[in-house]
């Protein structure tokens, strides 16, 4: 079983986690155009390579960010966005 290191709980089996998708910036509801909204809703980062993404440790309901390589499936790092600087 692949391990994912939760910033709060340490390394756990990856089936304890829920994948919440790539990190993306929110669209501004007051100023975003229809096209910007459509882009926000339907387009997500999908590179073959490094990807920042949200994960949740289900038993503890702890949500964090992982950086993972989507070709090799290596997890480069995980961090709590509340305490760490986003690159």
């Amino acid at each position, binding site marked *: 079983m*692949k391990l994912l290191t939760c910033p709060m709980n340490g390394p756990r089996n990856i089936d304890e986690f829920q994948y919440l998708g790539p990190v993306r910036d929110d669209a501004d509801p007051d100023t975003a155009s229809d096209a910007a909204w459509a882009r926000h809703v339907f387009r997500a980062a999908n590179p073959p390579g490094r990807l920042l993404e949200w994960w949740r440790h289900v038993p503890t309901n702890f949500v964090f960010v992982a950086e993972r390589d989507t070709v090799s499936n290596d997890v480069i790092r995980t961090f709590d966005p509340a305490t760490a600087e986003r690159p």
Partner: protein
Amino acid sequence: MVFRLLKYGLSHRYPVTGDIPATPDLKPRYDVVIIGGGGHGLSCAYHLARYHGIRRVAVLEKGWLAGGNTSRNTTTIRSNYLTPQGIAFYKEGLELFAAMSDELDFNIMFSQRGQLTLAHTEATMRAFHTRAEAGTYMGTRIEVVDPKGVEALCPELNMDYGGALEILGGLWHADGATARHDAVAWGYAAQAARCGVEIHQRTEVDGIEIAAGRVTGVVTSRGAIACDHVLIACGGMNYHVAQMAGVELPIRTYPLQAMVTQPVKPWLNILISSVSLHTYLVQSSRGEVVIGGGSDPYQLYSTRSTLDMKEHLAEGSVHLFPFLQGVRVLRQWAGITDMTPDYSPIMGASPVTNLWLDCGWGTWGFKATGVAGKRLAECIATGRVPAILHPFALERFERFALLNEMGATAASH
């Protein structure tokens, strides 16, 4: 006998010419470049050469012929979708499959044995009624069957499993079929090559050249090519290749895993799938039980297999057919799928003139091998997108005009 064999071996007629010519040298210019030497790309090349007289066509394939999702899918051909637009398109795809062996003079082993999708919840049964009505209206053979009907179609099914996830009914699609996937690609490739199409294996595309909003050529690992039209038909790599042209597709890429058991006596005459168990089974003509298909839970461009997904497929299979419990898994694999938000493909024009898209085929592309190639060849030859492809345009994601086929696609191949 020995003498005749020796004479044959030494004669000039030996070795026999293969169906697919060896990769030729790249020419500096083609009318059409097709990126991706899988079923869809080869089908488009065939239709261009055979029906539109466009023979200066190069099919570029990074690996080997049909080595991607064409040979990794689980060969379900069906048209039991939900939307009228979806059903119309897949119905045409199914009809092309039925005529394909004659069309290509290549036995694709088309077997129209019918597909039964199982419901384990009332909600699924309601969805089945909607799909049956839509399919009947569109002229396909589809009906809802009760548990007695399910037993009649497949007496080996375990109907109650001790009360957990018992089978409440099914969706019987008599048009459902299967075929040999590599034969489909080889048939198209052989006939396209006979018409003059060049198939370039081990030729990777590194860039797409654009001038004044119009595609002008591609850069490959074997040199640059000028061309008038480019078709992107790269299966799992569509997002990446489209980005080379600055086109950002609404695609997220996931692996889909499948496996096949050791050969057993023929017993499963139909295609079986279960919505709740996320498992579908078909017995191949060699007797192996082909079992799909578990989508991985997170984005990945890798064809590795995982034990937990295989366990999940095995659990679903044994749930439906308990006597499979002692049967061994012979092979396992995964394909990389380009998933769209609405589980429908993206076909037709792109923001770049003469750059055509055959993308977003996710986990459901094999059944459309013929029709996607045929209709995209029509786009390229006439410069106009035919009406049947309008609902699948990339612009639908700007207009919020989605073609939602999630319920008819997920786990019911």
